[in-house]
């Protein structure tokens, strides 16, 4: 893939996924089907009915095929037509999530995730659906020798129909197991793990493990119709040695983290040390399908050592 000028990767590009070449290893995020009868490992909330991920030409009823930033296809992450109030756990199907599963290479000490994105409500009714999109975002599931941690950002677009248009980042929580798992005291999800689903939610769009950016209000380009996409760049850089955030760029903005900002440092889990799993997601605010389109995704690292 020829990287466009939107991308500014660190020296070692691990993957550059242009969805004109297929799914490139991105697939639906599903739980572990390790319980009897192939049931899911955790049922604290419904984790098996999120909307499916697909290759999209971004084709609409009146505009025809929109295509992608480069070429025809993008990755479309879709929710179902379902949503719970903002202060409740996510409703079954109210999100769509796509994951890619990688591993951290030797000596990597900085990690950058970049993408071009657009977000839309399904054009299934007249008018403008922008406020039917509650949120979208992404994080990276990482584990080193000591901790599992999930740095990432979430754009809260609208909450219970009210425009918000502001960015959060995943931050450290001191929630108990029961608080994190909506009352379950023996939950598989330790506090900080899977913050896109767990941790108490509030009516203003806050959660146990999110912090609003200072100066994080941003009117992204939704455009003036549910069938018009503006491919917008984002870039998140993480210091893997300190487990801290470095910088988040989105659109024409650079959002600054407070000194020392980091996600929750959860205990290490078995058999996943060194994983590098980026996850993108979208959340519906009403009973209407919403989608996050990605084209392309570039993941890069800096090792500081000539190869």
């Amino acid at each position, binding site marked *: 893939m020829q990287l466009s000028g939107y991308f500014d990767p660190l020296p070692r590009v691990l993957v550059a996924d242009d969805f004109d*070449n297929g799914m490139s290893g991105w697939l639906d995020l*599903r739980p572990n089907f390790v319980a009897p009868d192939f049931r899911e490992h955790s049922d604290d909330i419904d984790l098996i009915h999120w909307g*499916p*991920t697909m*290759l999209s*030409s971004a*084709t609409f009823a009146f505009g025809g095929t929109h295509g992608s930033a480069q070429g025809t296809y993008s990755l479309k992450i879709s929710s179902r037509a379902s949503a719970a109030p903002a202060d409740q756990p996510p409703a079954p199907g109210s999100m769509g999530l796509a994951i890619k599963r990688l591993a951290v290479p030797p000596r990597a000490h900085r990690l950058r995730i970049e993408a071009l994105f657009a977000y839309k409500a399904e054009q299934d009714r007249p008018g403008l659906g922008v406020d039917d999109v509650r949120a979208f975002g992404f994080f990276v599931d990482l584990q080193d020798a000591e901790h599992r941690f999930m740095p990432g950002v979430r754009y809260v677009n609208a909450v219970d129909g009210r425009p918000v248009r502001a960015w959060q980042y995943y931050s450290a929580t001191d929630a108990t197991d029961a608080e994190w798992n909506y009352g379950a005291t023996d939950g598989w999800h330790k506090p900080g793990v899977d913050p896109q689903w767990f941790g108490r939610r509030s009516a203003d769009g806050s959660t146990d493990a999110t912090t609003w950016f200072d100066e994080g209000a941003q009117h992204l380009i939704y455009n003036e119709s549910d069938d018009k996409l503006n491919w917008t760049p984002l870039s998140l850089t993480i210091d893997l040695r300190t487990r801290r955030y470095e910088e988040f760029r989105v659109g024409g903005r650079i959002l600054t983290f407070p000194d020392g900002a980091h996600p929750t440092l959860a205990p290490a889990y078995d058999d996943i040390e060194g994983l590098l799993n980026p996850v993108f997601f979208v959340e519906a605010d009403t009973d209407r399908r919403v989608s996050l389109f990605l084209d392309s995704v570039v993941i890069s690292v800096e090792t500081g050592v000539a190869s």
Partner: protein
Amino acid sequence: MKTFSTSVVELRQRFDQTVETHPYECGWADEALFFVELHDAEPGERVVLRVQLSADGIRWLDEGTVIETAAASFARVTHFGGFLRLAGTAIRADGGPISVTLSVRLALKG
């Protein structure tokens, strides 16, 4: 090499009488197989599902293929444009409507 992708479009999804699977974009594919699995059906219960296609993922037309099964079945589809789904009903032996749990997998190649 061709591209191949299977989506588990519906996993153990409960449908109340009417079945409509998630609109799936697959304009890149030349061929598609729908795999349908009916879970925990009582004797006489079955689903009757029509393959549907769409120009926009919103408005749907019958493609002509029908899947009727009390357990598991599949249907092959080609030349379908940009979007596919299944739509139909879940019924018991006397034709009355019921609720069912379905898994639907869509295998795409192109």
